[in-house]
């Protein structure tokens, strides 16, 4: 008999939730019709800033499941100053990320010394064919548009690197 008040309390919880859902709406989001904005630093998709990439292969080598494919070749670029020697630069031929393999650990973004990889919160890129999940250089470049501005540094923090 001591349990009877608890029983009614339990019934009250479900009834209250029902009334709240009917009057104030549910906690869930009706996904395709309404979308929640993901948090600004959400790990949605990795974007490539091609100009910064030197095809150093650090990301490809640090990737735990080897889902980054890089191919490149060396080219001679015109000298910076007049009369100088032509410079040797690495030209990127191929930069693919296979999102069927990627596990969103973010090590490639961390390890990139030239700020060529960025997290974007975009998440709607599922495909009916698994092969289409291999995003090439052009597609990874398109994701750059969705990369949010880097958050403000803390007051007094030393600014490092350049973007």
């Amino acid at each position: 008999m001591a349990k009877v008040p608890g029983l009614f309390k339990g019934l009250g919880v479900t009834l209250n939730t029902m009334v709240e859902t009917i009057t104030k709406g549910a906690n869930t989001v009706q996904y395709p019709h309404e979308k929640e904005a993901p948090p600004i630093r959400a790990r949605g998709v990795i974007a490539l800033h091609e100009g910064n990439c030197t095809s150093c292969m650090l990301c490809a080598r640090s990737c735990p499941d080897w889902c980054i494919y890089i191919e490149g070749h060396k080219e001679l670029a015109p000298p910076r100053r007049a009369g100088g020697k032509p410079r040797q630069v690495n030209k990127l031929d191929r930069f693919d990320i296979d999102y069927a393999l990627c596990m969103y650990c973010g090590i490639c973004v961390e390890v990139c010394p030239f700020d060529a990889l960025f997290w974007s919160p975009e998440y709607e890129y599922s495909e009916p064919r698994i092969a289409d999940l291999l995003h090439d250089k052009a597609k990874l470049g398109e994701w750059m548009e969705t990369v949010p501005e880097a958050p403000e540094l803390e007051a007094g923090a030393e600014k490092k690197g350049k973007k």
Partner: protein
Amino acid sequence: MVALLASMPYWAQSLLRVLGGIVAVLLPAGTIVYVFLFKMMSFMQSRLGPMEAGPYGSMQLFAEVGKWLQKEDLYPERADKFIFKIAPLIVLTSTFLLVAVVPFGPDAWFTNFEAGVFYALAVSSVSVLGILVAGWASANKYSLLGGLRAAGQLIAYELPMVLAVVGVVIQAGSMNLQQIVVAQNAGEIFGWNGLGNPYILTQFVGFVVFMIAVQAELTQTPFDMPIAESELVSGYMTEYSGFRFLIFFIAEFATAGVFALIASVLFLGGWGVPFAWFGWESLGDIDNWMNVVGPLIMFSKMMLLVFLIMWVRFSFPRFREDQLQRFAWKVLIPVSLVNIMATAVLKVAF
């Protein structure tokens, strides 16, 4: 309308009754599944439930039925195939047999059976057979355990259910469900007849015991030991798929509706309105329009009772097997026996 029905040949009357029975079973079942299982449960968990099929997901049930009908009719290799196949039909048959005695209006009934209460309680236990047989024929240890648990539970809760109804029968002085409705609506409370005398007032203990027993008979949570999906993988239904599972599914919610109909007849005054409102004296005085309004009244009372059943279902966790048996034998049966004694004494005293 009655005259029209009487002028029809026997086969036409029978056909009409069969159609009426199908409507009386399937319409409540569909409504219950949509309103309570899809929507109310979702709201109680702060979500919206199905929203895509039709406006507010109202066509979801048809989508589900279509899905089940497309599935392959599978049975396990070592199953007793014939019995495995007819088991869901046994369960559904008991539902159809049950609705046959429920009166929906002064003339709107399928059979006006003298011992209606007795018949209803007897027929409702046929579903136990179907469940036990389904569990056994599946040749699966989960199904067998589920079937045995179902048998143990349904037999244990049959008894308090019968005993709870005995109080109503004593008070009404009849086992005919139609007479019980009339007795409630023609009754009066200490000379005041504005509300009739629905037996939920005098037989409240019986009502509570009956509803708990119904909850257990329907194997709804917290009494869902036989289909405990987390431990028994849905018990006796483990091996069923496709339209046989669909039949089990329909039977579960149709039986909920029919039990709620019977409970509303026994305790809430059934199809009737208090006769004093319109100056009726007995069954013969009732106007013909009650044959149309009566089913609607029954339907709303059914929805109310099913709401109670489902509310409890969605709120409480499952009993343990020993708690379940102890509750039936040590609490419900003594309480209903005392209720019968008190009713009998008061019946003689007044």
